[in-house]
């Protein structure tokens, strides 16, 4: 296994430019994880990352939201369903009438209408749309959350760098974050039953002042011990890790939306998805580079229109509120908000007024950071059965996300001696939707 290989060789995950920093620092490859941590704390690189301060909020529409009831309506066609298309703030761009609030603010959002991803089962489709490619038998790829936590996060960050919300039980197993060969350091904080992590809270018996004093004492002893042992990288890595845990514990309050003013609660609304998006914004504001809010479950084999009337109405409200909240805080230009599913839904309407799984021609949206707002890429035919123009797959979708964030999709990691690009060789981003 690649993970085993990484452990055996002691070779960490590196990129060419980073390796130069790494070697230049005088630390050896054998430094392993400690070396990586030191690498990421290099002043030049840290500054570069800090300047970027880019964040991602993925709205994962688990179960497969319908493109026809969101971003690619086909009104008055046999496949179109009952919803109309409405004009948006961008001339010539129409979306479903279920999204009137998003329609008023399309200047920050790009639509991709030409995904053909080929996998029509929930599990396979979810993995594909998280990885941008299929696994290899001997190599587990990290999903985009782990990659972006690695790319955008900082080793000594006091906040978690990959948080996932998935409260519904259906499909949860399909959407577990996968750090793959990046290792457990880039696994997500995975929140299911609660909006707040259970394990971060300080134990009740330990007062905050005692907790702080213990930390101070530990630091004092550590400093004494390292005096004269400045080359002891392992010890330093322990200190970094300890500070990180302390930071994560302090970030506990980020999950507590009760801190938000009533006005914000009123704006976002009372639903669980709204609450989690509010927390996502708090985390992004505090520096968490990747937050996934999973809204499940869109799998409307029966009563598709009733289901989408409920869920798109909620998505429209919460997503538009989130974008406006980010804009008002000056964060929208540095925060990429994505809507993505494992697939779309069939244009053909079944006997239960449902739509089934459909990976052949469906849509996603990208808003904010690095995006050419108001742009639409790709086109489906008049009934939405096939991609008519600009067909892309999962790899191109993920590459576009990376490039929007200023990350080269062909950037290479090394697993052992093997160079592994972020996306499959030759994959190109959809530059038409990028700023």
């Amino acid at each position, binding site marked *: 296994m690649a993970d085993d290989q990484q452990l055996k060789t002691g070779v960490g995950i590196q990129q060419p430019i980073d390796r130069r920093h790494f070697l230049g620092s005088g630390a050896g490859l054998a430094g392993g994880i400690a070396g990586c941590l030191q690498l990421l704390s290099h002043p030049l690189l840290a500054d570069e990352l800090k300047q970027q301060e880019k964040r991602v909020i993925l709205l994962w529409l688990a*179960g497969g939201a319908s493109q026809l009831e969101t971003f690619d309506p086909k009104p*008055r066609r*046999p496949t179109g369903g*009952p*919803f*109309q298309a409405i004009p948006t703030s961008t001339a010539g761009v129409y979306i479903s009438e279920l999204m009137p609030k998003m329609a008023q603010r399309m200047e920050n959002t790009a639509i991709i209408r030409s995904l053909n991803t080929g996998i029509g089962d929930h599990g396979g489709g979810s993995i594909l749309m998280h990885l941008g490619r299929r696994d290899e038998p001997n190599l587990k790829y990290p999903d985009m959350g782990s990659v972006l936590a690695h790319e955008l996060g900082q080793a000594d960050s006091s906040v978690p760098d990959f948080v996932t919300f998935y*409260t*519904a*039980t*259906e499909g949860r197993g399909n959407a577990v974050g996968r750090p793959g060969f990046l290792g457990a350091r880039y696994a997500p904080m995975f929140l299911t039953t609660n909006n707040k992590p259970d394990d971060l809270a300080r134990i009740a018996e330990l007062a905050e002042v005692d907790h702080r004093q213990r930390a101070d004492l530990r630091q004092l002893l550590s400093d004494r011990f390292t005096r004269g042992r400045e080359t002891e990288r392992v010890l330093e890595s322990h200190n970094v890790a300890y500070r990180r845990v302390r930071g994560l514990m302090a970030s506990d309050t980020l999950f507590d939306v009760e801190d938000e003013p009533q006005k914000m609660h009123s704006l976002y*609304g*009372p*639903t*669980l*998805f709204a609450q989690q998006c509010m927390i996502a914004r708090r985390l992004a504001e505090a520096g968490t580079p990747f937050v996934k809010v999973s*809204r*499940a*479950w869109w*799998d*409307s*084999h*029966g*009563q598709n229109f*009733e*289901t989408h*009337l*409920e*869920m798109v*109405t*909620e998505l429209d409200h919460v997503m538009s509120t989130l974008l406006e909240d980010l804009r008002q805080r000056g964060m929208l230009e540095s925060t990429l908000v994505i809507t993505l599913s494992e697939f779309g839904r069939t244009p053909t*309407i*079944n*006997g*239960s*007024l*449902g739509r089934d799984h459909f990976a052949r021609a469906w849509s996603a949206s990208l808003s904010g950071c690095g995006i050419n707002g108001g742009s639409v890429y790709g086109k489906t035919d008049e009934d939405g059965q096939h991609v008519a123009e600009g067909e892309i797959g999962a790899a191109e979708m993920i590459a576009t996300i990376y490039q929007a964030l200023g990350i080269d999709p062909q950037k290479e990691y090394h697993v052992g001696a093997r160079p592994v690009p972020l996306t499959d060789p030759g994959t190109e981003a959809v530059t038409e939707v990028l700023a």
Partner: protein
Amino acid sequence: MLAQIDPATLKVSKKISQPGILLSVAQLNDSNQVFVGSSDGMVYSLDAMADKPEPLAMEGHQSYVTGLVQSGELLVSGSFDGKLIWWNSQTREQIRTVDAHHKWIRQLAINQDGTMLASVSDDMVCRLWNLADGSLIKELKGHAEKTPHHFPSMLYACAFSADGSLLATADRVGLTIVWEVETGKELARLESPIMYTWDPKQRIHSIGGIRSVAFSADRSLLAVGGTGKINNIDHLEALSRIEIFDWEKGERTHEFNGDTYKGLVEQLIFHPEDQWLLAAGGDHNGFIKFYDLAEKKVIKQDKAPMHVHDLVVNEAFDTIFAAGHGQLVVWQMDAAKSD
């Protein structure tokens, strides 16, 4: 007095394929000429018993045509576009269009003397209209706009009592309100919570609702139809469910859970002499059922060729015209044999 009809003799006499989803049906003055409302926004007029029916399109709506009622020379259609259109049922020409609701119109009903039209919509208002001139008579407001879980609710069904004095309206969360038509006063609220499934854990959204209502001929009973609780709300795979109330007492007198054929009960019609209750609907497939209320049992049930969205019965109560997914179906029944 009507001739005794034997539901056990029910048989399909005609199946007419039609592209799209047929959501509503009305019969022209007890003839074989019927109108069907379609997902393509058209109302089609056709002779349902012709060898090769040739539907004539009546264009006017912009979305699914979900309600059709007919009286004399008037036909009124209602649509998800929120409009009501009055048509001349003979010439098929439009008489007037009324912007009736700002959300989807789900169902229409007319009283027996053909003077008043009721429309229900997802704006959660029932509006009563003068059928002759299209003027608004009254608004009935009592159903909540949001579900208890903060999502938009839906007002699916309405029906007049045979004497026209009562109107029932029913919504997504399982609430039925009985109104006094003359005053617009609420007379009763009946709860059918089983017909609304909120899934707080697995999928975090809802399904269901009361899709059909009907008063018994003597107006003492009110039947409501939908589904029972649904375990997997991705699908309509639930027991069809009918609850019948003595609405004045607020007592539930009957519960029917269909397990042979499943799905939503989309339409309910009492026999005019209360000999039986007719129900139809479906999931991926369709069903038609007859219930004996005195015996509290199913008299006859059959698989329909498609999910049935609407049906209308002729005056003799021996012919049923049903609109559904891609088809118009005609069922016929024979007179009961005397002993």
